[in-house]
């Protein structure tokens, strides 16, 4: 399983990267390579040129920008996993990081690499959609911004143009003082691609009324799906599992799940609903327990 031959170049600036991408339509970016290299080994991907962006300084950062945390696209997952700012300001992202692949793949794999790969089961894509993150990319000399809801268009497909290079992602920070998070995924083995996943971030007032809710399900459709109707239904209400379940099941019924040898569509739909309920209840539980009245 040796890749087909290719050229390799390691530019030191994003401008160079964009110029190279524009010049060769068979050129591809490589950052961590954890998904690209297996594809190349199986000769399913055959770039003529690999443009290595792993060490471009402009692309590796975690910045606290107040209302948002900005993370550079080439920032390795292990750095984000252990970052203090992320832990403090993006609890949902911090919770999800250990579920991505194995520690050995997080040592090399990048935030941007996972997002640009857009695997339906990718945890980072789910968090990006749940929190309404914003992607920033360069296309030749232009810098463009795109919300996560528009970024993921299909299985392994993003709205990035061929000549585009993701440079960063911004996750909004919730200012509420009482925030709970929940995340669940189901796979055959611990670190496999999920069959279904759900993420939730919920803000509560002092009376444990939900003031704000973001919930999304992943791995069951070609892209992560925000459950807008659930968010509307539960905003301003107390948490009651029956109501949550009813709202979630109604929302999930609208989704056409994938079916494959690993899991049927019914399984995905049913389990996504279960996990979404559990994620929301976890969010509630974590707040209720720490701020007990």
């Amino acid at each position, binding site marked *: *399983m*040796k*890749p*087909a*031959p290719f050229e390799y170049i390691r530019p030191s600036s994003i401008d160079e990267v964009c110029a190279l991408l524009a010049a060769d339509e068979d050129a591809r970016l490589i950052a961590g390579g954890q998904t690209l290299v297996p594809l190349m080994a*199986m*000769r399913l991907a055959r770039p003529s040129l690999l443009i290595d962006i792993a060490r471009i300084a402009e692309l590796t950062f975690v910045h606290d920008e107040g209302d948002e945390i900005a993370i550079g696209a080439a920032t390795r997952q292990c750095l984000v996993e252990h970052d203090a700012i992320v832990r403090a300001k993006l609890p949902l992202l911090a919770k999800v990081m250990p579920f991505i692949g194995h520690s050995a793949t997080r040592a090399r794999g990048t935030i941007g690499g996972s997002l640009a790969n857009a695997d339906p089961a990718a945890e980072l894509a789910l968090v990006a959609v749940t929190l309404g993150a914003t992607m920033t990319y360069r296309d030749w000399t232009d810098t463009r911004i795109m919300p996560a809801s528009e970024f993921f268009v299909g299985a392994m497909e993003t709205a990035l143009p061929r000549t585009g290079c993701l440079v960063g992602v911004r996750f909004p920070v919730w200012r509420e003082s009482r925030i709970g998070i929940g995340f669940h995924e*189901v796979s*055959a*083995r*611990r*670190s*496999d*691609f999920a*069959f279904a996943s759900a993420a939730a971030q919920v803000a509560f007032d002092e009376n444990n009324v939900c003031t704000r809710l973001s919930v999304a399900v992943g791995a069951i459709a070609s892209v992560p799906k925000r459950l807008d109707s659930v968010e509307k239904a539960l905003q301003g209400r107390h948490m009651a599992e029956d109501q949550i379940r009813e709202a979630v099941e109604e929302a999930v019924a609208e989704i056409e799940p994938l079916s494959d*040898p*690993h*899991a*049927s569509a*019914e*399984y995905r739909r*049913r*389990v996504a609903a*279960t996990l979404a309920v559990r994620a929301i209840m976890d969010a509630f539980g974590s707040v209720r327990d720490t701020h007990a009245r």
Partner: protein
Amino acid sequence: MSAREFRYVSSDRRVREDRRFVVGKGRFAADIALQGMRHGALVTCPHPAARIVSIDKLDARSMPGVHCVVDGHEVAAATEPLPAGLDTPRVQRRPLAVDVARYSGEWVAAVVADTRAQAEDAAEMVRVEYEPLPYVLDGEAAYQAGSPPVHADHGSNVLLDRSFTWGDVEKDFAESPNRLAVRVKWGRSSTVPVETFSVVANWDPWREILDIYASVQMPKYPDQLSAVLKLPMTSVRVHYDVDVGGSYGVKRGIKHAALVGYLARRLGFPVRLVEDRLENMRGGDAHGPERLFDVEVAFDDDGVIRSMKMRALDNVGAYAGRSPFQLGKPIGAIVGPYRIRSVQYQAIAVTTNKTVQEAVRAFGQSPTNYAIERTIDAVAYHLILDRLEVRRRNLIRHDEFPYTIPSGTTYDSGDYHTVIEKVLARAPYDGLIEERNSLRKQGFLAGIGLAACLEPNGGNSSFEPLLNPKITTTTWMESCRVSIEATGAITASVNTTSSGQGHETLVGTAVGEVLEIDPDRIRVVRPDSLNAMPSNSPVGSRMAIMLGGAAFHAAQKLKNKLLAIGAHDLNIPLERAVYADGEVFEKESPQNRRSWQQLVNIAHRNYHLLPKGFEPGLSESHILQVPTGGQLPTADGRVQMYPCFSFEFHVLLAAIDPDLGKLAIRKYLVGHDCGTVINPKIVRGMTMGGIAHGIGAALYEEFAYNDEGQLIAQTFMDYLLPSAHEVPPVEIIHHATPSPHTVFGQKGSGESGYLGAPAAIASAVNDALSPLGIFVNQLPIKIAALGDMIAAAREARKSK
């Protein structure tokens, strides 16, 4: 037989092989770099069945670094067909397909280039024109007349369809108040070692020797290679000192070595083929049984089973290798540990357009154990009796050994009831039941799994003449030579390859035990096939018994010789001479003694002091025939299969999240009786590793195919191997019922754990599902399928 006191046997010694592995100095086949060596890569067929219309090698040949591109015709012209076990001469197998490719992934051409990458580049440029043919994938469908025959000349897809009746089955069925039928399916999985099959071949035309370095575990490998390559066996030198990165049965590699051997001879330089994972999964011919069982039992109201009918239909894939014999070996333990007195057994092997099977750990016994245990549970459920109690009532009792089962095999020894009681006490079983009930109250589907299974060991190929009367093999031997050099240093030989079983440690321990010398002082050497003594490889969990036995006897011959030399030199009758710790002394006057070096000197240098007629030197060997072996089957198909029978009893507690279908093993105990344990670290490792394999086969691993005949699980992303997360802690409870047939009372343990874990896990799942009134009758039990089953059952209950 009471427990014996040993000096080295059973003591907790380190495994000496470990030392080279922890520093990365194992010598695996892919580590072998010969000067001038080039590399092979394969061209594979994408269709499940196709006529090969043409192979255009022109573009490939002109690629950088390429030395040759060969196809099936060229190789077939220079070789004999690969050996098969059954009498099926019209089912011919070649390293590269000839005219017809019969499964997706079959090798149709090979490229040799300076690097593996260049060989792959060229392989892509080989243009094969195919004409797709009808194909069949399902075993039952292949059994039907009219299914497209995988081998047109053979006429049908049936390789084997043989029925045996031992005892008066119909009478026993007629006289029993109850009967029930069970159908279970064992899914296609395999042991999938982390190292793929790798082989280096080098032809020396001046000495006329073909050197083979291979990651191989195969009996009669040089024999078969020489036959296929049309070389005298004295021109084939297989290097047994290559470390093998796991095999568990499957690394037979005959087509790989035949191909590479041919290429090396044609090209005049060494050629190496290291299967990549895709080649291995699709075309390495190392899949395992895919078996459908129909079992019917006749039993009384107490759950005592009188008679059993079993039909086993195995989908062996596109060619017959040795794998159909995996339907024969279980005949030697066809009733498991139970006192069933008559049996009817039908063994069916069919070809389909799937990858070829190879011998998988325990050679068909684990699927058979699964079928037997599922049936026992079914009887218990039917009569609403406790599953443990039904087992207790049917198990062969300690005082009934040696026990001859209807198919003619005699079990050597066992104390199944004691092992079970030990495990239940340790659990404790009542505690498990409480925990299960508590889990159920918390909303889990929780179940306790039980499996009482035999591990036949010692090997013996009596299934060969049983299933193919043209074969008259009744010899199944193993050898060891022990030598003491002039300086007093000791060497002992292992005459085959090892893949982690610790054979060097085994031999050192056995020889040290006999000679009463620290095993670490004994150098274990590995000859190659030109200077090795006969061996039949570590198959059938045989080496503790056979290599241990051969080493023991060879060492014993040396000890006797030393005793005789000492007595002679001390001028005392032999009866008054005592051997202890390498010295010989006079019993009543121990100050009269000869030291080790003195004895050695006499043997090597002082011919005038040797007893009359003695050969000089100190080198003895022993070739051991398998105990209890040596007979052909009777006319009604009765024969002694393996000599020794280890026993394992698994108890586990599993909890299934009903909404997700996700199973977690909360507790796992296994009682294990393999007689005298020669090295506790090795035996424990075997059992734990076997359980991990069993967990894989039960819950995660499957070579799944789609309807288009494509293997879906081609990589480790879809063929799921248990990681450390998926294997829970297991407590092993020991018991030792020594075997009367072996030198230390040892039985084998190379297949332990794997023989009972799948049955036990299936049993736990069914216990967990029983409140819903549903059962799972196939393996693997995958999470989403289980989730769907549970959801459907709950839905059905709701609507009632």
